[in-house]
């Protein structure tokens, strides 16, 4: 009895503390300017959609959303395209210097962004990537590759090798074996890696801040961080934009909770 009460309290506290702070933003986004600025501020909103309208049309929210979708989508596709063959080769084939490659990847995943920020900026300046969405996609791909390769390699290693051996005896080369035999079996692993890359690219702020300086190319995190009004801080519009930026992530977490949990512990525990 005592134990069950303790558990109930624990569940209530963790769920409450996880969700309630963000709920304040959700409530704010449906208020009116008067309800926000009242002294004291109103607890409950009257249910106005004004802030969403104004965020969309006066604060570039539509641009930010579109750019985030493009950047996160392109990063995920490119990173998977590069990570899948690399992870397969590292998990299954003999490569001289394999340990060295794995060590380099582990090292890259520890880099503080600042340690590469200046040179990445100069590199993109040289190749004309500043103020282009593809300019942030390139560093994002480089920085998500280690985790993606790590997760995928650990999934590939757990697949039974017999099928691949049989394919090889029948004359399949490594590429054909990867695409015809291994990939269909490894969809959960690919899905897990995809979700984690997607969340990283959707949320990344630092490089986007440096590389994208015009609202027409900026992603949601940059837009939200630099949100400004003419005279006062537009908290209502900011709350609305934040809800819009977070909603896709909540859907992803609700649908894919199991994969995220397994992916994070695979990337960490085996890493």
């Amino acid at each position, binding site marked *: 009895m005592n134990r069950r009460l303790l558990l109930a309290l624990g569940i209530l506290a963790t769920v409450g503390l996880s969700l309630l702070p963000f709920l304040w933003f959700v409530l704010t986004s449906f208020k009116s300017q008067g309800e926000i*600025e009242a002294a004291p501020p109103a607890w409950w909103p009257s249910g106005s959609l004004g802030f969403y309208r104004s965020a969309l049309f006066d604060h570039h929210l539509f641009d930010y959303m579109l750019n985030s979708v493009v950047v996160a989508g392109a990063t995920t596709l490119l990173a998977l395209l590069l990570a899948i063959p690399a992870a397969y080769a590292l998990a299954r084939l003999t490569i001289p210097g394999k340990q060295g490659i794995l060590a380099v990847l582990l090292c890259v995943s520890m880099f503080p*962004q600042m340690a590469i920020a200046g040179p990445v900026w100069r590199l993109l300046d040289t190749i004309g990537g500043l103020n282009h969405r593809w300019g942030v996609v390139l560093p994002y791909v480089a920085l998500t590759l280690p985790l993606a390769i790590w997760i995928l390699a650990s999934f590939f290693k757990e697949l039974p090798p017999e099928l691949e051996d049989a394919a090889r005896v029948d004359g399949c080369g490594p590429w054909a074996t990867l695409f015809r035999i291994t990939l269909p079996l490894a969809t959960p692993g690919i899905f897990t890696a995809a979700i984690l890359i997607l969340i990283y690219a959707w949320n990344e702020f*630092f490089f986007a*801040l440096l590389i994208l300086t015009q609202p027409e190319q900026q992603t949601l995190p940059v837009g939200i961080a630099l949100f400004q009004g003419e005279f006062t801080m537009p908290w209502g519009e900011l709350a609305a934009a934040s809800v819009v930026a977070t909603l896709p992530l909540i859907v992803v977490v609700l649908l894919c909770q199991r994969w995220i949990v397994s992916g994070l*512990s695979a990337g960490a525990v085996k890493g």
Partner: protein
Amino acid sequence: MNRASSILRHRENLAAWTMVAPALLVTMVFALYPVLDSLWLSLHNIYIGLPQLGSPFVGLDNYVALLRDPVAQQALAVTLAFVVLSTLLELACGLIIALVIHERFRGRGLVRAAILIPWAIPTVVASQLWRYIFNDQYGFANLLLFGEQVTDYIPWLAYPSVAFGIVVLADVWKTSSFAALLVLAGLQVIPDDLYDAARVDGATARQRFWHITLPLLKPALLLALLFRTMDAFRVFDLVFVMTQGGPGDATQVLQFYGYQTLFTEGRIGYGSAVSVAVFLIILALSLTYLRAIGSSLLERRRT
């Protein structure tokens, strides 16, 4: 080895390399080369906007200056305080959350999804959220504490130590669930019969926690500590959005100082030295942790 199989072997090696090469190339160009370039730049004096000064080689001068720079020393102190405080709190909260979601109960999947939401929220959004909660006029903290008494409302973020605490709080809220997942993975591999045996021997719940759960969680806790420490050292988004390093320099962390010297002031050489210093600190710390994790895994294997 006959000729046919040696050709096959050769072709497989070639395929293996073509599989790895593109990923390695991108990593080298956009991660490895930039780190080396930072190191190279940190040995020069370069000012953006003053190209007539050129980029003279100055050896370790920037690092010598960094050691004597009072702002950098303050930033290091603030960063260390942030790292220690936030990782310890995250580990404690993560352990509690992990113990809760390790239990079997109806709706556990939903609870797990709920605690993942702070982790999934963009850090920038979380930063604006906590900034708003502690806003002096419109914030939830004041409304909750003082309600109608508007004159008592506190400008939380205007006080140096309070602002620092709020940045820590935002980080703990955002990342405790990540620590919890790592601890959960550790909990799941503790065999049930250990608890059964302890129960037979008459151990209380508290004794079981201190003498079975906690010692066996040590590798998982160390791993969570490693990941959280490395991440806390890189803190930037929270400070950029919530405080811009202020008030005064209460939340001026190393990463933000590096950003300011590099991109606001355009002191490329000195800013690179700051970045490289942060990189070296993180590298040294993680090597220390990895050794500790390695030896604690060995310990477990021996017993």
